[in-house]
């Protein structure tokens, strides 16, 4: 049976049934005993009254007489008195002739059936007859049999049995009903949960914390688990939604810029020089959009990679030289550094290699270096340092001498589209994706990244990546 309610009810009923059978059996046995013991004492009394009518026969030695006129017993009763040799002395006429009902019984009680009536009978062997006149020690012994119909006793027992069984069945029925109801009621919160869970929107909205409203303590862990699951989903959904809305804003703005630049050219008459300038501006806008789209696609592809294959499926990447990879990125950024008169000081290290796709690694260094150069003061210095750390890993430090990151921005710098000082980032054309991409690349390649302010000045990014020796 799959239903919890059904299983519980079945179990309870089985236990109840065993108990009921025991109780009913016991009470029937007790009634049985009580009824038959009453019947037997009555039987004995009547037997004694019959025995009292037996006397010794003065005419013959060892002879016995029976005072048949004095017999005062119910007419359905049967009795029979034999002398010790088996010779009949007296008895009910019908019983004297046919001896089969008495059988071969010794002392004791027995049943027999006669003419559709059940009789309870008792036999007493060697019953002593007291001499009523001289009160001598009795010398006379007889065998006596006495029987009386047991219909009433039988009916009484049958009645008691019926009542006991009915009570047993009734109690079974009651416990079935109450168990069914109680289990159903106990399961109600679960049904309510299911109902509430049914109402949860895809984004997890409209779900209230059920922990407080659950009355059964057994359900509190479930309620708590459900709530924490939904909260996690809600947070994930909110993040995704914010990312989407930010992405849409950036893309629409980028398109709006391109469109307005072109429409501006369309309006009125423009000289050839103006047209050329306009086209150059439109191209600039286009490459900005291109850059944004490329960044978003890179993020999306890393996300997709991590979701579909899990982290760390990078072992088949060819190991790349760390020194060369960083030097290459630094070379690419020389023009930008020159504009701000920033010098990049590179402290290379022992020959370490990193298993990561070349494009991703390059993008990682470019993003981090660009960030450092942008935030450096005019004529400042960006320090790049590689070191080997315990196990097979390497640490890359990129430090700038800029103003550092404000404490309110610090927890958010890796968030997508987050710009700490937006007016400044805008001027450098950032979208707030550089550090998000860096983090995604590092984590995809089983590394860790963190950023912190230095006590003296500037911010330092620390990247740890698994490395192999060359």
């Amino acid at each position: 049976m799959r239903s919890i309610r059904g299983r519980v009810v079945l179990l309870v009923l089985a236990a109840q049934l065993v108990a009921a059978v025991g109780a009913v059996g016991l009470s029937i046995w007790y009634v049985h005993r009580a009824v038959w013991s009453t019947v037997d004492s009555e039987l004995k009394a009547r037997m004694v009254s019959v025995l009292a009518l037996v006397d010794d026969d003065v005419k013959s030695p060892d002879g016995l007489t029976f005072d048949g006129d004095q017999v005062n017993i119910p007419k359905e009763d049967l009795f029979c008195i034999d002398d010790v040799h088996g010779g009949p002395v007296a008895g009910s006429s019908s019983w004297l002739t046919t001896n089969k009902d008495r059988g071969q019984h010794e002392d004791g009680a027995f049943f027999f059936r006669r003419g559709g009536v059940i009789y309870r009978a008792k036999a007493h062997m060697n019953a002593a007859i007291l001499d009523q006149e001289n009160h001598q020690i009795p010398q006379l012994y007889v065998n006596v049999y006495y029987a009386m119909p047991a219909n009433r006793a039988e009916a009484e027992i049958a009645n008691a049995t019926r009542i006991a069984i009915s009570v047993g069945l009734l109690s079974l029925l009651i416990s079935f009903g109450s168990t069914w109801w109680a289990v159903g009621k106990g399961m109600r919160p679960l049904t309510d949960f299911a109902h509430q869970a049914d109402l949860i929107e895809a984004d997890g909205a409209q779900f209230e914390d059920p922990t407080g409203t659950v009355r059964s303590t057994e359900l509190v862990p479930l309620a708590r688990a459900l709530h924490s699951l939904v909260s996690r989903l809600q947070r994930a959904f909110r993040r995704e939604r914010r990312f989407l809305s930010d992405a849409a804003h950036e893309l629409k703005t980028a398109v709006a810029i391109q469109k307005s630049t072109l429409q501006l050219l369309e309006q009125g008459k423009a000289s050839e020089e103006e047209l050329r300038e306009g086209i150059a501006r439109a191209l600039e806008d286009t490459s900005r959009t291109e850059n944004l789209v490329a960044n978003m696609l890179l993020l999306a592809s890393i996300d997709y990679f991590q979701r579909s294959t899990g982290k760390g499926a990078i072992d088949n990447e060819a190991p790349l030289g760390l020194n060369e990879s960083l030097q290459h990125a630094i070379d690419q950024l020389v023009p930008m550094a020159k504009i701000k008169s920033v010098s990049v000081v590179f402290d290379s290290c022992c020959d370490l290699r990193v298993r990561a796709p070349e494009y991703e690694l390059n993008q990682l260094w470019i993003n981090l270096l660009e960030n450092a150069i942008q935030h450096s003061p005019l004529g400042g210095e960006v320090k790049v340092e590689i070191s080997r750390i315990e196990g097979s890993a390497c640490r890359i430090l990129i430090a700038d001498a800029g103003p550092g990151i404000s404490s309110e921005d610090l927890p958010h710098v890796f968030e997508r589209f987050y710009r700490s000082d937006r007016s400044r980032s805008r001027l450098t054309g950032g979208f707030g994706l550089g550090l998000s991409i860096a983090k995604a690349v590092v984590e995809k390649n089983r590394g860790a990244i963190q950023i912190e302010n230095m006590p003296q000045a500037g911010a330092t990014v620390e990247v740890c990546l698994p490395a192999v020796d060359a």
Partner: protein
Amino acid sequence: MHVLIIEDEERLAQNLAKAISKNAGFVVDVALEGNEGLHLALSGSFDLVVLDLMLPGISGEELLTELRRAGNKTPVLVLTAKEDKQTIVGVLDNGADDYLAKPFDLGELLARVKALIRRSKGQASSSLVLADLILDMNTRSATRAEVRVELTPMEYRTLEYLMLRQGSVVSKEELLEHLYDYNWEKFSNVIEVYISALRRKIDASAHERLIHTLRGHGYMLRRSEAA
């Protein structure tokens, strides 16, 4: 007319400023950041604010709320990348006069800018009429008694503002604020120069005088009581 653009995307702000000043002949100021934008908008010398919703500093929504709380009635045209009903309704309920979703059409933006300014000055039509003086805001031209009046851009701007506010007194300071960008030399006598040029071109050869000077108060465009 004086328009304030609050938009953090510098390129977009420049393009908008160029289009509005070139096409509509309005004076444009640009704020790239929310707090600066709010500060400028609160000065009250603008005829229209073009406001982007996603801004550094304070957001567009907050800026709008602050502006309206301060009792500023300048029309606000909101630019937004969000097109959902909820945002649009929220923005309009919050005190915006119109909205435009990015990416927008420059022509549409210009039309809305002009319409909002016209409406806020109590004019429904894009041609402003006073007696036989007609000013067409679309072609930016004026005719008096069906004869075209040749005006320089600055003269046109001055006339357009006076026409939009016809029937009320416009001070010299108000003209300076609305016709020139905010760092213009406030004590120059440039306004007197333009007014006298306008008088010469519009009123000199006509039988009815329309430009009136209220000494110590300013200027007013209205029909002469004599006529």
